């Protein structure tokens, strides 16, 4: 917090930037661009764009905080809900709910959460203690799990009806669609509470990031703390994947940038990642809307985050290997 820019504290700067991006994003649509649209809002702004921008902000904040959390837990800067397979597990859970024919509104999120949790446990136990010694092992296990999960999703897609198959396809590529206000409200409470819980646990995350031995030496009941924080991250990812499908790399890019800018203390990092993740995904989704002008079709937002995140991930990996 020591650095200032034109005398403005970074926290305030980030808030102003976030607000600015949200306003600009509301002005970018598939039919018109008017950055000042917020000052003369039309029906389209309120009923179509606002729900999209709100969902993108929620999902971006949640995925980014989940990424920061996983990175601390696994002591691995390359961890991301998508990369380590948590998103894949959530998608698999959601698809299972669809294939089994559960129609209750909470069936898909509950199954997605169970899938995220199961994937986390499986990836962790497969990677075992080696994960903490060698970060690449965890990534490899995550990659294999993701490949397996998407093969399983594709298998399920083949054996169901065409309508269900299209619904399933949505899980494989993240999309920010126009959801009902009630869905946004529930997701907002859910994501907000999970982020708040992780923020309150910032001190624990700081200790966990030091490594098991150090954290134990400093008096932290490591196993129990890890279980709780993992649970919160899985809950976050499960809820978001249930509504938006798999959107990758948000949880990788955003925490990395902020760790550089403001340091690794989670009391600052968690709220900064929440705001920064929201801004990142809102911009990516606005870009997705812009593609409509060129193709009369929208590129799924997951494709855009992968375009940004893929090269970013590789460059980080190269630095690690070199």
């Amino acid at each position: 917090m020591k650095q200032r820019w034109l005398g403005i504290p970074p926290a305030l700067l980030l808030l102003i930037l976030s607000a600015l991006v949200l306003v600009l994003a509301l002005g970018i649509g598939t039919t018109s661009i008017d950055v000042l649209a917020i000052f003369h809002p039309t029906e389209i702004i309120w009923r179509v764009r606002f729900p999209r921008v709100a969902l993108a902000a929620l999902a971006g904040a949640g995925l980014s905080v989940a990424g920061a959390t996983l990175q601390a837990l696994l002591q691995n800067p390359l961890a991301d809900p998508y990369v380590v397979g948590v998103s894949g597990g959530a998608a698999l859970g959601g698809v299972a709910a669809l294939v089994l024919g559960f129609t209750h509104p909470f069936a898909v999120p509950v199954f997605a959460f169970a899938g995220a949790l199961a994937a986390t446990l499986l990836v962790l136990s497969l990677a075992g203690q080696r994960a903490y010694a060698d970060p690449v092992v965890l990534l490899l296990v995550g990659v294999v799990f993701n490949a397996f999960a998407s093969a399983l999703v594709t298998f399920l897609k083949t054996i169901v009806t065409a309508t269900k198959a299209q619904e399933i396809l949505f899980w494989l590529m993240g999309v920010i669609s126009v959801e009902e206000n009630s869905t946004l409200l529930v997701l907002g409470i859910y994501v907000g509470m999970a982020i708040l819980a992780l923020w309150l646990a910032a001190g624990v995350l700081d200790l966990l990031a030091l490594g098991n031995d150090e954290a134990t030496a400093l008096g932290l009941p490591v196993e129990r703390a890890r279980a709780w924080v993992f649970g919160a991250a899985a809950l976050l990812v499960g809820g978001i994947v249930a509504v938006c499908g798999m959107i990758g790399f948000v949880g990788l890019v955003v925490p990395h940038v902020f760790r550089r800018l403001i340091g690794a203390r989670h009391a600052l990092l968690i709220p900064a990642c929440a705001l920064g993740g929201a801004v990142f995904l809102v911009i990516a989704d606005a870009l997705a809307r812009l593609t409509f002008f060129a193709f009369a079709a929208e590129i799924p937002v997951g494709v855009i985050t992968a375009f940004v995140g893929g090269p970013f991930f590789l460059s980080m990996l190269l630095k690690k290997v070199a």
Partner: protein
Amino acid sequence: MMLWLLSLFIVQSGSGAEWVGRPPTHIQRIVSLAPSTTELLFALGVGNRVVGVTRFDDYPPQIAGLPRVGGFVDPDPEAVLALKPDLAVAIPTSSGRKRVDLLARLGVPVLVVSATRLGDLWHAIDTLGSTLHVENAAAALTKRLQEGLQKIARQYRDKKHKRVLMIVGRKPLVAAGGGTYLDDLLAAAGARNVVTSGGAFPILDMEAIAALDPDVIVDMAMSHENDGVAFWENHTLLRAVRNKRVRFIADESVLRLGPRLLDSARLMVEAVQF
């Protein structure tokens, strides 16, 4: 609550059409969410009320300057809403109900007309005719198409029915099976579909095709015909290939269940009978 309200407006109007949202009374601006429904609207003489079409639309020529609102699987809600339509016309697609429900929620009623079997076309014309108050044009269109089809069918009724395989995709090999409009079209052209099981569009492999042993293969996979020729000539284990009985229909309209039905039927006759 919203969902419950919405479900009240889902009124079944005949077996082949469904309203999502409250049926409008006064219709001046229509967005068509499928190329086949666009063609129907123009054939019924209400093309001047069509204000938006999909990115796949290419017929009739009058649609050239119209705004594109996305595809039939992925209509963009903002692009539709911006055109301020009184009605959107759609066909059921593999994307399920979500997109259509969203449009209805945003205040655009959607008429979904089935487009699976030939019989669905008569329902669609009838429903559009009564919804848009052009009943006479609808009746005339149905009469013209049905009589034309009967005339074609009469010509080939007494001939020996060839056994035909209809291909709609090459990689993977996708055939048109029973329960499809193409199956009905083939029957009208005086031939029999060799694919009778595996659903509407089963994926086959070469071995399965060799076992079905069709007299004629009609390839409607819309790509360059030379690619198709090169593809099939390697598979000499098929009798139809050895006998040079692989025919191509490169006109995409044959896959659309719309007012150009008789052209499609003639293309199918040419492919299987000559």
